[in-house]
């Protein structure tokens, strides 16, 4: 009978992806609630040292699935390897971080078991051995409680930040089980990852950020936000649609595909607050949102909100701050 929780560990260039430990924290949590053991799985080639490091966490064991074809990530290679590990361990839950890499291969893995993922969860609750997972839907406007049905395993991914990496418990030293895993044909050939022209703007060090979203309506209107940033001595930033439209360069983009920031003050102008944006700024000190839609998800994490026309509010705000600073 299926039992236990298997947690997937992501790494690149000899380093763990930090969200892997958020997944470990989630898996340990689930394990405690269900009184089941947690095993961690690492795929790769020549990364035995990472497996040893993992063994320092409170897990029943570390499975290190090795194959030359796993040296670089490919969806074909990872799916084959993980499928074999999952079939061998027969867990009840497979827990993964909702990273771009997991998004790329995990649906393919789940499909091998004729199911999908309960993806991008933000929390879970266990009652009488039944697990209820919560995910954001409608770009963050609603939450949905989801239950798994049918045969195990249940594949679950957790959103970045849903659990804290520093809450992954350390242990007395787990055993590492190295598995020479079979991998079939790998059809895709990856080239080396690279960064586009070196980021000219480093927003991660900014104390104050004024960010604009769709609500700014035109490139010309960005001048309004620029003036506000100027009186605050802050930097100008944007959500993805603004950079896609090339109203601001891409090195000013905040969010999962741009920069992750945590300034003392973050002012969001006309940003509705899609998850992809929120993960890039939710740890800011004081968050201000100005938006015409009272139900915009940005207000869920804002300390101060103005529901209304940003074209009315921003010039007044700029002027008031200028006076206060004079």
């Amino acid at each position, binding site marked *: 009978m299926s039992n236990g929780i298997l947690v997937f560990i992501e790494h690149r260039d000899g380093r763990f992806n930090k969200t892997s430990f958020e997944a470990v924290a989630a898996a340990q949590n689930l394990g405690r609630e269900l009184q089941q053991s947690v095993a961690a799985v690492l795929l790769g080639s020549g990364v035995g040292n990472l497996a040893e490091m993992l063994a320092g966490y409170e897990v029943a064991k570390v499975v290190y699935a090795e194959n030359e074809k796993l040296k670089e990530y490919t*969806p074909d290679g990872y799916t084959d390897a993980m499928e074999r590990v999952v079939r061998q361990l027969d867990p009840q839950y497979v827990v993964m971080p909702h*990273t*771009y890499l997991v998004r*790329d291969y995990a*649906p*393919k893995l*789940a*499909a091998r078991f*004729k*199911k*999908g993922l309960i*993806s*991008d969860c933000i929390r879970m609750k266990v009652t009488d051995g039944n697990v209820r997972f919560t*995910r954001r*839907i*409608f*770009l*963050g*406007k*609603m*939450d*949905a*409680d*989801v*239950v*798994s*049905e*049918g045969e195990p395993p*249940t594949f679950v991914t957790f959103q970045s930040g849903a659990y804290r990496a520093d809450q992954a418990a350390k242990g007395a030293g787990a055993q590492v089980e190295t598995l020479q895993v079979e991998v079939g044909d790998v*059809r*895709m050939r*990856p*080239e080396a*990852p*690279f960064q*586009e022209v070196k980021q000219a703007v480093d927003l991660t060090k900014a104390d*104050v950020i004024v960010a604009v979203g769709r609500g700014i309506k035109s490139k010309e209107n960005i001048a309004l936000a620029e003036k506000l940033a100027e009186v*605050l001595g802050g930097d100008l930033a944007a959500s993805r649609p603004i*950079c*896609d439209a090339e109203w601001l360069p891409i090195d000013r983009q905040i969010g999962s*595909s741009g920069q992750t920031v945590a300034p*003392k003050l973050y002012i969001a102008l006309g940003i509705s607050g899609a998850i992809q944006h929120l993960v890039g700024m939710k740890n800011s000190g004081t968050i201000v949102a*100005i938006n015409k*839609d009272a139900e915009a998800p940005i207000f*869920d*994490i804002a*300390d*101060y*909100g*103005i*529901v*209304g*026309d*940003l074209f*009315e*509010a921003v010039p*007044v*705000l700029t002027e*008031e*701050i200028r006076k206060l600073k004079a």
Partner: protein
Amino acid sequence: MKIIVMMKQVANKDAILRVNKASTWIEEADLSWEVNESDGYALEESLRLKEKHGGEVIVCSMGPQRVKGVIKDALARGADRAIHVVVDDLNQFSPYASASVLAEAVRNEQPDLIMTGLQSDDYGYAQTGVIMAEILGLPHATIVIEIDASAEKLRVKRELESGWYQWYTMPRPALLTIQSGISQIRYATLKGIMAAKKKEIKEIMPSGEAATLQPHQRIERIYLPEKQKQTQFLGNGDAKAGAVALAEKLRNEARVI
């Protein structure tokens, strides 16, 4: 090159959402609809590939009759013909079931390329395309932001996290999920709208094992998110008054200016 674009119709971004009586989904009557954002980019990229390399673009959408709105718009923008998988209630399909229905709907077309958006703006599962690829036995790449189809093998640029990118090469046929913003989307012209009226829209019903699959996950309840912070709303509807109050709060309460 024969390209199939999967397009979903979703609730309009600005629509006010109401939870239905059973709290299992939103009230769909009177809702305004639009094409899922990244699917619009998948269509645009498909049309550009066709313009460059020749061939045919087929749009495929699943849902009740209302999804003809998305289909007709895609035909007006330049798609050649369409497949409409008619189902009354999309909510009964889990990610695997909908991917599996869609895979059977396009299998016999034997496309060179299947394109989807990277995720839907309603469920946000981000899985349908990848599961389809697995069912059809195709290689795939997700979160694609550039496509080079000039050689025999496809070369695609994928977005990784935090400003990193990576190129992948893979054989055709293949399935790609497209990131929003890959190119500027064209508008339908009047000529396009007129031409679309003569284009074929084939209606089919779900078939194969997919149509009878048991769901592997179920939504128990939906609700407005619990707030993570107690937001102080300022101005009470008066944006200017709110701005004056905000400046004062930032100075004296938050002490950030």
